[in-house]
């Protein structure tokens, strides 16, 4: 621990306002999401706890506001702040799980492509090329339109979109790693390929993935929100932040802005935090810039 505190990385971190702000936003978001149910008195999914008399209350500082509902309520009398805390769980869960799945699958394919080369490499990389020539949001939209709504389906669609960037990066680093002597030595020593890949190549290709993985959580949260906003993401029983915005959009023209504006600010806080911290990581982990 003390070696970490004395490290250059930690030193630069304490001197970077954006890195501190970014990680503070991320940590704050995660804490709020974890502690969510304890922070609010109302469970927005529990119909019995809702009262239609409380519907469309504005935020507490406006005329007609109610101190019980800090950010106002929606059409069912649901507390917007509580909905955000519960919805952010779904958004963050989807972003994290899809990131891990993409990372595992993409890293595996990239290692295999780089290590074995030949036809396996060509096939994997051609698929990646074709996929990269289309915007992720369009591919995800198409997949969702084919399979229908659902948290599991959003995860599949995001993973199908997200593996490519890992596969490409890992393949590139693998190609340069396997030429190095330590891999050659392991081969000469007669280690099986699977073991060489796992024990020797894998640890050396991981560093660039940290930045990609960090930024990708933010990207996934945004894509999921867009899909849900279009009505092809999560089902209404599991409203993520994107779906909350969609529901709010339907009443926006009546001037009821708070049901959609606040969930958007929540997304922004998370993704902005992730991007700030991701930018810092990129600069720190990129030896070329030092």
């Amino acid at each position, binding site marked *: 621990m003390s070696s970490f505190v004395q490290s250059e990385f930690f030193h630069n971190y304490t001197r970077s306002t954006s890195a501190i702000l970014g990680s503070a936003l991320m940590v704050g978001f995660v804490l709020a999401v974890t502690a969510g149910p304890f922070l609010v008195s109302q469970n927005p999914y529990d119909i019995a706890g809702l009262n239609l008399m409380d519907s469309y209350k504005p935020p507490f500082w406006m005329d007609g506001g109610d101190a019980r509902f800090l950010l106002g309520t929606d059409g069912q009398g649901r507390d917007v702040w509580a909905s955000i805390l519960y919805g952010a769980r779904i958004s963050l869960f989807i972003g994290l799980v899809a990131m891990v799945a993409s990372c595992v699958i993409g890293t595996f394919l990239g290692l295999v492509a780089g290590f074995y080369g030949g036809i396996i490499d060509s096939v994997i990389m051609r698929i990646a090329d*074709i996929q990269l020539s*289309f915007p992720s949001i369009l591919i995800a939209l198409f997949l969702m339109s084919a399979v229908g709504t659902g948290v599991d389906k959003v995860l599949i669609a995001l993973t199908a979109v997200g593996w490519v960037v890992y596969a490409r990066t890992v393949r590139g680093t693998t190609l340069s790693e396997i030429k190095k002597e330590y891999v050659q030595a392991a081969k000469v020593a007669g280690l099986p390929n699977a073991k060489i890949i796992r024990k020797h190549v894998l640890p050396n290709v991981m560093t660039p993935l940290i930045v990609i993985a960090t930024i990708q959580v933010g990207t996934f949260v945004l894509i999921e929100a867009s899909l849900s*906003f279009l009505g092809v993401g999560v089902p209404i029983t599991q409203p993520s932040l994107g779906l909350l*915005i969609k529901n709010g959009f339907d009443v926006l023209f009546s001037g009821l802005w708070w049901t959609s*504006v606040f969930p958007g600010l929540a*997304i922004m806080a998370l993704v902005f935090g992730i991007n700030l911290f991701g930018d810092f990581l990129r600069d720190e982990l990129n030896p070329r810039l030092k």
Partner: protein
Amino acid sequence: MFGYLIKRLIQMLLVLWVVSLVVFLMMSFTGDPVFMIVPIDATEDQIAQARRILGLDQSLPVQYWIFITSLLQGDFGQSYVFRQPALSLIVERMPATVEMVLVAMLIAVVVAIPLGVYAGANPKGRLSRIIMAGSLMGVSLPGFWVGMVLIYFFAVYLGWFPSSGRGETGEVLGVRTSLVTANGWHHIILPAVTLSLATMAILLRMTRAGMMEVARQDYMKFARAKGATRQDVLYKHGLKNALIPVVTIFGLQLGDLIAFATITETIFSWPGMGKLLIDSIYRADRPVIVVYLMLVALIFVVINFLVDLVYTLIDPRITLK
């Protein structure tokens, strides 16, 4: 050069073929389009007959063969909802999307390039930091939410702009566009600004990175050694080279703008082909979805090809192989 063109052409056809295969397979495994065609109280016989007419009683390979040969013959199928050829439905709505994408691109370039150049030339300045924070904000915001906030503020609250629709259109060279009427421009500003934000942020960051990269090159030091001022060197020697990568991104962003136009059009009820896609997804109007995807795939493949060509024109160090 000629050999390269042939090779690229074959590659492009290959990509389109793969896309057609993927689109076909995904569509075949999901849902049964027969129920889009027959009335609710249809008998078994009627359903079987509809199935025969649609060719759904054939095996998958045969279905794919029919699908791909009719595509090649220019038969893109009928929309289940509109009972019109799917292709003409999309082509009708294309000018609306294209004009919005172009205006968004214009806004992005006009704002991003000068700010990016400034931030790259003065990386430590206070204003540069604000610009960069703003651009990071631009990629962190959900585009549809920004559109919504703009609608609320400028359309509902201030009433300066209309909240939806395309407004009046005029005809130029046989294409109906809203870019020739004042009312049309009045309608296009909000959606185009919404659409442009993400691209603006990315172009800005690319321009800045390019400027910072060229500042480190030897020819810049040489020009400085000759006695040229820093500003002169940056803007006369640096800028041209800094913008090379921006051109590539420009092309790729065009593709992204077309994709994100689906969302922007949905928020602003803009009658373009993106909104048609979303509506068709809701209505399970399979032929329209298929044609949209094939058409957009074609557009993307062509854009990527053009970007590669332009790249070799502006950067003589790169040769086509």
